[in-house]
């Protein structure tokens, strides 16, 4: 008997800013819709994994149960930075693979509103009378901005310029990523923004952290997504209509940072992504040339471009040429972020690593409406959270 795990139901809410909805409204909506999509109810579910970052000390899995069904099942509340949603999926999968349940639910939810730049808010200065070394660096003053930047826009900008200096990528090539993803989002009614930007508009917008301008940075926002997973054995017992739409998880891989010298000073977003991708391709028995679509972690435009290379979508060092060729456009060789990506669909942190599964699974089912990639059979999802967790999933359409 194979030990495959299948997605039989999935849903996501609109991403955006919803002041009238609380965290549990969002999580409940995504979960109930995913359950309805799967033909299951809470009484069928044997395990719940809930991912959330900013309210992670509130036991949101159990709070969600109080809205939709308290059945006594084990609940795992997880947090893993921007890979939080994907981590919830991994926990649900491991529960099935360990034989603890045959139906598991993974939910990711976040309510960020208009938080502004993460870590960038002005902090009230403490009264300081005498310089005293503090912490593991023995700092006597705040070092952000004094000894470089560790804020996310700067981290991912530097990851991009490192690649650019080594491979000759231009600021315009980075900007083309944002042009593409904002264009893609115009077909996605669930996206936070659905507005097209010209290359000139992207490049002349306010610079946040060069080379990333404002439309090259993902927004904060609210949203939730959910998946219902089942074992092979359970799938065989379900209705033909459920089986027909079941999407196989052909690989599910999570990595953290292995030691690298540079990674001690500046997060190394490449090595763990490459490790995860290579493992995922091997487990799934496919290569990047087999992918019909990819949803990757474009928290900033610079990030997407370097992940073309990290996920082996382009020739080594060839990410600039890859975007110029149109390959990652929705009508290109390897469509990337046809949802609009984090840049335009939005990035409610806890939901992101499940929303990308929703997107790919919906295409593999042939149910993506105006943005459908025709005939999609195999897709890949990727998230990375600092510092650092990376998850890659490979999904396959059910056999026709």
């Amino acid at each position, binding site marked *: 008997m194979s030990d495959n795990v299948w997605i039989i139901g999935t849903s996501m809410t609109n991403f955006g800013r919803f002041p009238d909805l609380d965290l549990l409204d969002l999580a409940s909506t995504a979960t109930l819709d995913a359950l309805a999509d799967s033909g299951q109810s809470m009484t069928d579910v044997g395990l719940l994994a809930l991912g959330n970052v900013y309210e992670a000390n509130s036991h949101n899995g159990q709070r969600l149960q109080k809205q939709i069904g308290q059945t006594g099942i084990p609940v795992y509340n997880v947090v893993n930075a921007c890979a939080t949603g994907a981590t919830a999926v991994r926990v649900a999968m491991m529960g099935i693979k360990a034989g603890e349940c045959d139906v598991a639910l993974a939910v990711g939810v976040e309510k960020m509103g208009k938080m502004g730049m993460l870590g*960038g808010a002005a902090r009230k200065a403490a009264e300081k009378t005498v310089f005293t070394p503090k912490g*593991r660096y*023995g700092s006597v003053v705040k070092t952000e901005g004094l*000894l470089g930047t560790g804020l996310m826009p700067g981290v991912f900008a530097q990851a991009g310029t490192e690649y650019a*200096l080594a491979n000759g990528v231009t600021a315009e090539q980075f900007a083309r990523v944002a042009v593409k993803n904002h264009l893609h989002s115009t077909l996605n009614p669930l996206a936070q923004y659905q507005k097209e930007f010209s290359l000139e508009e992207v490049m002349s917008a306010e610079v946040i952290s060069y080379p990333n301008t404002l439309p090259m940075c993902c927004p904060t926002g609210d949203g939730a997504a959910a998946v219902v997973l089942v074992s092979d054995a359970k799938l065989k017992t379900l209705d033909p209509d459920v089986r027909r739409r079941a999407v196989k998880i052909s690989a599910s891989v999570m990595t953290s940072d292995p030691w690298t010298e540079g990674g001690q000073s500046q997060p190394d977003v490449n090595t763990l992504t490459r490790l995860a991708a290579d493992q995922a391709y091997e487990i799934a028995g496919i290569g990047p040339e087999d992918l019909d679509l990819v949803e990757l972690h474009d928290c900033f435009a610079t990030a997407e471009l370097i992940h073309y290379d990290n996920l082996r979508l382009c020739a080594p060092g060839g990410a600039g040429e890859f975007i110029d060729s149109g390959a990652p456009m929705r009508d290109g060789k390897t469509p990337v972020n046809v949802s609009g990506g984090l840049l335009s669909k939005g990035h409610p942190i806890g939901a992101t690593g499940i929303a990308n599964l929703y997107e790919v699974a919906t295409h593999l089912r042939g149910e993506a409406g105006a943005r459908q990639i025709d005939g999609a059979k195999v897709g890949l999802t990727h998230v990375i959270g600092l510092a650092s967790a990376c998850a890659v999933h490979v999904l396959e359409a059910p056999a026709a």
Partner: protein
Amino acid sequence: MTQSIPAVEYLVLGDDPHLQAHECQQCGALYLDRRNACAKCSATTFGSRRLSNEGVLRAFTIVQRGAKSGPFTSAVVELNGGGVVKANLLGVTDPAQIHPELKVRLATFPAGTDDDGTVAVAFGYEPVGA
């Protein structure tokens, strides 16, 4: 005489300012912060190693909006002989001035004074030949 203190402990002041790293005694991995054990090999004994004041810029960004008002240029520098450090690239905010293999050298500057008059001294890098 004005007292000074390094902004971070891995900066050594005096007549010859330089950076000093914790070096794993087993594998030679370098750390600017205190570690309980080596992240590369898990050994628990560390010594000190002086790092070069010169290196090559490997990554950068020019920050316009952040916790500190811009523009300033953050850079990742690969030091000659080992060690990678993040600091500001001093005196450069135009990306056209940054090119592959840009050589840089450490420089120090005052970064604040406390109520006792002690000056915190930070460091950054300047392009060599600038």
